């Protein structure tokens, strides 16, 4: 599945949820179940917002980046899970070049605001940085 196919899948999953409460329920449930290997719950893998904590770990396997995430909040955690499911298993180039439109399309664009202390932008930035690091490492 390409990154855009993964995004489209999430969009169609949310399409039937008219009520914002149902949408948040979906995100919360995703966030609740996300667990990372405890050895990665360290400051090194922490993306600290003003209020929430999200840990994202990445490894490079067979030319692809594999992400995993966990958060101490369910909503930021759920957003991280969706980012992981969209980007994980792709090559660094695919990740670096990707444009993520699903958050806006599923009606959560308030989380895209750079002023939001726990926005997904910092998570996305970190995930792309991992991809760039793996790319430069593999090319050197």
């Amino acid at each position, binding site marked *: 599945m390409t990154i855009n196919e993964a995004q489209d899948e999430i969009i169609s999953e949310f399409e039937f949820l008219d009520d*914002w*409460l149902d949408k*948040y*329920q979906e995100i*919360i449930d995703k966030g*609740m179940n996300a667990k990372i290997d405890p050895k990665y719950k360290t400051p090194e893998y922490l993306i600290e917002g*003003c*209020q*929430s904590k999200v840990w994202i770990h990445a490894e490079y396997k067979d030319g692809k980046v594999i992400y995993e995430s966990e958060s*101490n*909040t*369910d*909503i*930021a955690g759920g957003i991280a899970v969706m980012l992981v499911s969209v980007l994980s298993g792709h090559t660094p180039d695919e990740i670096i070049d990707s444009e993520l439109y699903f958050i806006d399309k599923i009606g959560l664009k308030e989380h895209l605001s750079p002023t939001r202390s*726990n926005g997904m932008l910092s998570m996305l930035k970190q995930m792309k940085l991992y991809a760039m690091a793996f790319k430069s490492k593999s090319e050197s």
Partner: protein
Amino acid sequence: MINIEKIRADFPILNEQVYGHKLVYLDNAATTQKPKPVVESIVNGYYHKNANVHRGVHWLSQEATEAHEAARETVRKFINAEKTSEIIFTRGTTESLNIVAATFGELLSEGDEIIVSQMEHHSNIVPWQLVCEKKGARLVMLPIDNNGEISLETLKELINEKTRLVSIAHASNTLATVNPVKEVISIAHENGIPVMIDGAQSVPHFKVDVQELDADFLAFSGHKIYGPTGIGVLYGKEKWLDKLPPYQAGGEMIDKVTFEKTTFNVLPYKFEAGTPDFIGSTSLAAALDYMTAIGMDNVEEHERELVEYATKKLNEIEGMRIYGNAKKRSGLVSFLVSDIHPYDMGTILDKLGIAVRTGHHCAQPTMDFFGIEGTVRASFGIYNTKEEIDILVNGIARAKKLFHK
């Protein structure tokens, strides 16, 4: 009794819709909304009375100066200071605290001690830390107990011959505790020590009389008392303000300037370098007049009713933990529900049109004491109603379901 309908009509913002819901604004400890007379004062100030104040020879400058100085008198009256020269306009509580920390700090020597409580806002901790570091002085913490109260006995024990000043919040922005500042001041004064009161969360909510308290310094912000942002007040007893060196330097604060020596202006101008925010000061006065017309005793009673109702209703929610259980409380409630993260709770309440604050409320030492990262804080103002508290309680119930709690 206050006429809540009439008051609400003065605040057009309360009719705003948020995600299809009527705004329920419960973030008044962060900032309050502005009534029409305040906004009109800002507009009229710029339309009709805008000219640089002091020393202007022309009519408009005289008008602006008179309004600015009349505002100082309004502030004096509001907190019952003895003299208008003791009222310094600042940008807000933070700047007021910084002025005292920086200038009083100049009088400190190595080994001197400053006492602040454990429940202080960062702005009443960090300025003192900076000055203590610079002077080799020590910042001493007055601890709180599980109810969020200080002990006067402990204060007595902490005070010694090295203590130079006590700085304490009148009301906690996180725990709602109203500190016994009159007793704190009396204990400190028995030992010849001045006291700075952070009035950010008290002056907007009940009558504060600096002479009755015998406070040496008091800070408060305009924007938390229905006035404009960017204007605040530092009250200081004349005897202290005379002793302290100037803070910032520039125009307004000087008497005579030569390259050999500069002499400084009289109080309060010695502490007001540069063009003051004269539109801000006059609009702050409009806010204080508005509060005086309602009556601070009425404000206090209304907010006490709200906080009592909110505490009762919130405590009926399973899994509710309220932080701060002082005997005397101001108009806010800080809480957590089950193990729902405050950020998650705040996000869901926001989607229901309910504005609360979440996080550590700039009081990390307080959070550390309770072993938590943050809370959800609902803080009340003159326009809030019991119906709005019901909406909050229902919102929490909906959030609990979402988080399977």
